[in-house]
């Protein structure tokens, strides 16, 4: 199998390395809304033209507010939803949900860490059975081998000593331990990619750090790529190589983590940064500059840039008419905003 190299204008600066593991190309996921199960009313465009490439061993964060489509993006990448348009290329193979054998193979390569650990674990299964099941399903027949892998996975997530945990049920574990178990289940098939959808948002601050560090360690130890989905920018800097900012079903800024935190360029990314306080007693004195309004409807998104109704720097007659392409702002730094490439616009007025 030879890796398929696909490049277009918007992606050239995006690939962080030559060693591409996952390539998401112009991905769309629309959900049809019907009235009385018959008449088509419209589509919720939850993912609307998302492209990026992910290198082997790289971790990226997708950050956005609820309803921006980030969880749908995660589930589409996982193959839980078939894409409406566009495709996913993983390790050189096209994943489109048509080929059953390719799909089975793909699911072994990708692990999923859910948001709510308690909801993600079957309450009537012991830890041992929870970890055993994916091995059985994926045809690892020798009991010794399964046993070895279960122990290794538990050790990897530091649920030690292993024997204390094997016979426990999920409700006997604390929230942090449950999330470790979910991570153990995600890595037990030795995947190349982990998709983590808000893995720490339900946990306490003190446990949160522990889980972030655990994911970071697994990533470097096994060279796993991680797609980390979150709404909380403040957890990002400790973890990921690159950040994608998602708004209204599109990626509007892609940059290296340190570049984005130092120099957020899209007005939405700037607003997001401004809105997050650092713990500081002086905050009491300051008001935060936040754009009002609500995120756009994904059924009838605004024309042009989807952020323009809330944008403090809106350019009338341009932002509300024409959709901005990704402009290059620096090395590996792409921004979908007319502020950085107004001269390229085709003005009709």
């Amino acid at each position, binding site marked *: 199998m030879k890796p398929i190299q696909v490049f277009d204008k918007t992606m050239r600066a995006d690939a962080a390395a030559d060693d591409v593991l996952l390539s998401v190309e112009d991905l769309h996921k629309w959900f049809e809304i019907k009235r009385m199960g018959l008449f088509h009313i419209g589509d919720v465009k939850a993912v609307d033209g998302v492209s990026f490439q992910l290198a082997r061993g790289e971790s990226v964060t997708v950050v956005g507010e609820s309803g921006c489509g980030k969880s749908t993006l995660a589930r589409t990448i996982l193959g839980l939803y078939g894409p409406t348009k566009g495709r996913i290329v993983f390790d050189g193979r096209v994943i489109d949900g048509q080929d059953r054998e390719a799909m089975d193979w793909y699911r072994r390569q990708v692990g999923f860490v859910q948001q709510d650990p308690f909801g993600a674990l079957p309450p009537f299964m012991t830890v041992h059975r929870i970890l055993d099941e994916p091995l059985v399903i994926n045809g690892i027949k020798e009991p010794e081998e399964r046993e070895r892998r279960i122990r290794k996975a538990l050790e990897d997530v530091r649920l030690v000593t292993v024997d204390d945990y094997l016979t426990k049920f999920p409700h006997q574990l604390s929230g942090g331990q449950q999330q470790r178990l979910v991570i153990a289940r995600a890595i037990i098939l030795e995947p190349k990619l982990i998709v983590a959808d808000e893995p720490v948002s339900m946990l306490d601050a003190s446990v*949160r750090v522990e889980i972030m560090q655990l994911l970071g360690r697994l990533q470097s130890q096994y060279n796993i790529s991680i797609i980390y989905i979150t709404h909380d920018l403040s957890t990002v800097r400790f973890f990921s190589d690159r950040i994608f900012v998602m708004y209204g079903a599109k990626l509007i800024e892609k940059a290296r983590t340190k570049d984005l935190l130092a120099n957020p360029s899209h007005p939405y990314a700037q607003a997001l940064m401004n809105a997050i306080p650092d713990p500081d*007693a002086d905050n009491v004195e300051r008001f935060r500059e936040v754009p009002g309004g609500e995120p756009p409807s994904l059924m009838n998104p605004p024309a042009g840039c989807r952020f323009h109704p809330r944008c403090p720097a809106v350019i009338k007659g341009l932002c509300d008419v024409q959709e901005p392409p990704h402009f290059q702002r620096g090395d590996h730094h792409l921004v979908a905003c007319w502020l950085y490439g107004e001269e390229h616009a085709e003005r009709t007025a």
Partner: protein
Amino acid sequence: MQNGFLRVEDLKLHFRTTRGPVQAVDGVTFHQARGRTLVVVGESGSGKSSLAKAILRLLPRNVHKYEGRIFMDDVDVMRLTNERFRRQVRWVKAALVPQAAQNALNPVLRVQDQVAEPLLTHGKVKSKEQAYERVAEVFGLVGLPTDFMTRYPFELSGGMRQRTAIAMALVTSPDLIVMDEPTSALDVLTQANLMNVLKRLKQSTEMTFILITHDIATASDLADDVAVMYAGQIVEQSTARRFYTAPLHPYSKMLMSSVPTLREDKELQHIPGSPPSLINPPRGCRFADRCPARFDKCDQEPPVREVDGSRVKCWLFE
């Protein structure tokens, strides 16, 4: 912190369960001056929400023990009968914005009727029209357009519903508003907007706020004072400036160093172990098992000490 408008002394709230009483709030003492905002922080299960319920006497059925003294304007409201508490304290002196308040609204009532209800129940206004006038006023305070008054809750976004719940707490102009995680279910931008609203309220009124949250970074937007709760007890109460720069209790220190920051580069720490069970909490200091500074004395219950205006429950300050 003297001459407090609110004084809570040795407040206990234990719940009955099949495995024994859960000591959700166990001997909480604090004083709060009028017009200041106290933020109560702690991990989940530390008894923060139970403290809010205990202050407003909003108790579930399985109460095992509910005792202590709560003074509001030097009146011990714990001595009042339930009916007198309802008439004289709840909504009149103190109101609660419950957790996930945006989902607590009645779906079949227009929001103006829900917000006006406490006014009418407590006889604060003579007519419905007067009540609606007051509702329009508080809608202005929380930044809701008045033409939203006739809408139903499902026609409002999450942030707007949360503002409605806050408007409801404000409508009778109580002295004290207790807010239980008012922003934790909201998006970052909505949350920042709401924090601005609360900050403006705080500056323009004489109201006293108690904000209960697990989000230490966001809490700094409102805090004048911070109380840290651990396993049903307050282990430190300090001014916000002290808490955010140099907290005293070992637990507060570790909690602060586990908070991720956006702008500042720092090594994050986590707190090893997990909080003790509140059914049979350990004797002595409840944090001792996880504490890096543990020594012999920690097997006994630590006293509360005043250190430079802070109150700390730790043997290190003996």
